[in-house]
C-alpha cells in the first residue's frame, strides 16, 4: 500500500530536483537580481532603479520596436509558408516525400553558428546572393549594412531556419484530419483551395495557435541571428531584447539590469500569449 503511494515520487524526484535547481532557483534569483546593482564589486539593493532606467532607455525601446517589427512580419510569413508546404508535402500524388520533408526540416537542426556564418558570407556586398541578383538586373543590395535590409536579412534567415520546423508540426496535425471531411467536400464540389480554407485551416486552428505561441516566444528571445549576423547593427537597427540582455550582462557586466530586461520580456511573453489565446477563442 505504502509502496504504491510513494513509488511515483521516486521517479519524479530527479526531474523535480533538477527543475528546482535549474529553473525555479534561477527564476527567483534573477528576479531578486533585477532589484540590485553592483557598487564597488558588491551587489546592493537598488529598489526600482533598474526598472526606471529601463523605462528611459532608448536602446530598450529600439530593441522592442525591432523585435515587434520582426515578429509582425516574420511569424505570419513563416506560419503560412509552413502550412502551405505541409499541405503540398502531404499530397498523395507527390513522390520522394521523405526527401522533401527532410530537406525542409534540415535547417532547424543545423548548427546556429555555422548557418549564420554561411548567411553572412552569402549576404556580403559581393556575395553569392548579390551576384545572382545582378544576373537578373537587380543592383547590389546592402544586405547587412543598411538598417532596412539588415532587418530583412534577419527575417529571411529566421524564416529559412524555422519554416521546416513548423511544417513538421503541421504535417503531424494534418494526419489527424479525417479523410472523410475532404471526401464529403469534394462530393459537394469544393475544389482544393476551398478545401484548404474551409477544412484544413479550421481543423488546424489549435496547432496554428501552438506554433504561433512558440514562434512568439522564440522571436522575443531572438538572439542567435542578430548576434552572429549583424551584431545588432547598423546602429541598433537589428538590436533585439535577447541580444541586449546578453550585452548588458556579459559585455557591460550589468547583470542586475540584464535581469530587469529579462523580466520585461517575461511579462510581454505572458501578455502576448494571453492575447493569442483570446483571439483563438475556444478553450
Amino acid at each position: 500500500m505504502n509502496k504504491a503511494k510513494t513509488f511515483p515520487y521516486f521517479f519524479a524526484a530527479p526531474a523535480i530536483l533538477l527543475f528546482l535547481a535549474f529553473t525555479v532557483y534561477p527564476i527567483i534569483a534573477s528576479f531578486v537580481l533585477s532589484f540590485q546593482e553592483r557598487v564597488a564589486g558588491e551587489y546592493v539593493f537598488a529598489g526600482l532603479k533598474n526598472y526606471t532606467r529601463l523605462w528611459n532607455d532608448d536602446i530598450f525601446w529600439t530593441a522592442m520596436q525591432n523585435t515587434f517589427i520582426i515578429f509582425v512580419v516574420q511569424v505570419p510569413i513563416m506560419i503560412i509558408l509552413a502550412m502551405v508546404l505541409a499541405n503540398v508535402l502531404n499530397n498523395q500524388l507527390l513522390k520522394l516525400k521523405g526527401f522533401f520533408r527532410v530537406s525542409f526540416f534540415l535547417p532547424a537542426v543545423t548548427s546556429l553558428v555555422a548557418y549564420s556564418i554561411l548567411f553572412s558570407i552569402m549576404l556580403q556586398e559581393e556575395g553569392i546572393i548579390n551576384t545572382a541578383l545582378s544576373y537578373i538586373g537587380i543592383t547590389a543590395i546592402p544586405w547587412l549594412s543598411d538598417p532596412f535590409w539588415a532587418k530583412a536579412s534577419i527575417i529571411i534567415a529566421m524564416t529559412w531556419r524555422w519554416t521546416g520546423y513548423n511544417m513538421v508540426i503541421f504535417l503531424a496535425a494534418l494526419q489527424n484530419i479525417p479523410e472523410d471531411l475532404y471526401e464529403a467536400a469534394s462530393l459537394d464540389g469544393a475544389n482544393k483551395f476551398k478545401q484548404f480554407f474551409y477544412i484544413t485551416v479550421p481543423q488546424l486552428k489549435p496547432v496554428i495557435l501552438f506554433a504561433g505561441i512558440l514562434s512568439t516566444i522564440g522571436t522575443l528571445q531572438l538572439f542567435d541571428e542578430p548576434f552572429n549576423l549583424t551584431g545588432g547593427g547598423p546602429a541598433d537597427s537589428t538590436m533585439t531584447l535577447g541580444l541586449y540582455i546578453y550585452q548588458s550582462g556579459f559585455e557591460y557586466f550589468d547583470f542586475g539590469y540584464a535581469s530587469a530586461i529579462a523580466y520585461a520580456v517575461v511579462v510581454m511573453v505572458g501578455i502576448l500569449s494571453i492575447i493569442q489565446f483570446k483571439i483563438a477563442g475556444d478553450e
Partner: protein
Amino acid sequence: MRKVIGRVSFLLIMMLVLGACSSDNSSSEGSAGEGDGSGKKVTAWAWNINVPVLEEAAKKFKEENPDFELEVVELGREDVYSKLTTGLQTGGKGLPDIILVEDDRVQGYMETFPDAFVNVSDKGFDESKDSFPTYKTELLSKDGAMYGFPFDGGPTGVFYRTDYFEEAGVNADDIKTWDDFIEAGKKIKDATGKAMLGLDLNGDDGLYRMMMTQQGTFYFDDEKNVNFTSEESKQASEKVKMMKEAGLVKDTVGWDAWISAMAQGEVATAPSGAWLSGSITQQAKDTEGNWGVFKLPAFEEDGNRASNLGGSNYVITSASNNQDLAYDFMEFFSTNDDVQLTAMDNGLFPTLNTIYENEAFTQEVSFFSNQPIWELFASEMNDIPSVNFTGNYAIASDESIKAQSEIMNGKKSIEEAYKAAEDRLKNRIQ
C-alpha cells in the same frame, strides 16, 4: 519499516542528484589550483596561438622547477570572457589560476570586480616595470599598483600591396599624412580599380580607434570624460568619411570578409596592428612578396605615427590557491627573452623591450618583400601614447560604432552623430 526504507531511498536519490551538482563544483574549484595537495599544478585559460607559447614556456620553466606542471585549457576568446565574467560574478568559483585578457577588456574587469586579480606589484613585479612600454604598465595599474603582466602589443602600420602601388606609380615613402593616403588611394583606384582598404563600417571602428590613440586620446580623455565631441575625434572621423566618400572603402562585414578581401587582392592596404602579419602570411599565401608595411600616416606632417591596436595581458585570479607559484611562472614567462621570442614565432608581438635588440627583429621577412617589418614595429613602441580605456570601454565602443554607422549611412553629420553618441553614453554610464 517499508516507510522508513522508502524515505531513506528517497533521501539517497536526493543526495545522488545534489551530490552530482556539488561534486561538479569541487572539481572545477580543483582547477583553481588547490588540486591534489601537491600544489605544483597551475591552470591557465588562453586562446589560439597563445597556447603553444604558454606550453613552450612551461617546458622551460620546468627545467628549474621540475615539479611544476601547467595545464592550459584552450578556449575561444569570447568563451574566456564569458566564463571569466560568470566566474567572477559567483565570487571566483571555477576560475583557473592564470587568464589571458586583452588590453581593451582588462580595465573593465578591474573596475567592475576590484578584487578579481592579484596585485603583482606586491609580489615584486615593479622591478620589471621598466622592461615594458609605459602604455602597457599604465593600462594594468590601479592606484599605483599593477594587477597583471603585460604580454603582446599591437603597434600599428599600414600593410600594403607593393604591386598595386607600383602599378599606380605611388611611392609608399611619400605617404606622410592621412591626406596623402587618400590621394594615393584615388590614384590606385584609377590605375587598378581596387579599393584602398576594407572597413566594417557598421560593425567595427578599428581605424577610428587607431587614429584616436595616435592622437594620444581615446573614447575617454585622461579624466575619464567622454571624448566623442573632441577635436581629435572629429579629425579621425573626418578622415574615415573622406575615404568612404572618395570610394576608397570596401565595406567588409566581419573579420572573415576583411581577411578574404586581402587574400583575394581586392584591397590595396590594411591599416592594422602588427598581429595582422600572422593572419595574412597564413591566409594570403599566394600574395607572398607583394606586401610591405609603412607606419600610420600622421594628421599633419611630422606628427606622431605610432599607435596601437589590440594586445593582451596575463592576470592571476584572486581565487587561485596557488598564487605564488602562478606568479613565479608568469614572471618568468613575461621577462624571459626566449619565451617572448617563441611568442614572436607564433605571430605575437611582445612588449618586453629587452628583446628588441635581438637579431630576430632585424631579419628580412620574405613575405613582406624582404622588408625588416619587426624593426619598424619595434621602433614605435616607445612612442605609443597611453590612453584611457576605462571600465566602460564596451559601452563606449558600442556607441562609437553606432555613430560611425550613422555618419557613413549619411543619416547624420559628424557633429550630430557624435554629440548624440556622447549624450547617450553619458546616460548609460552614470
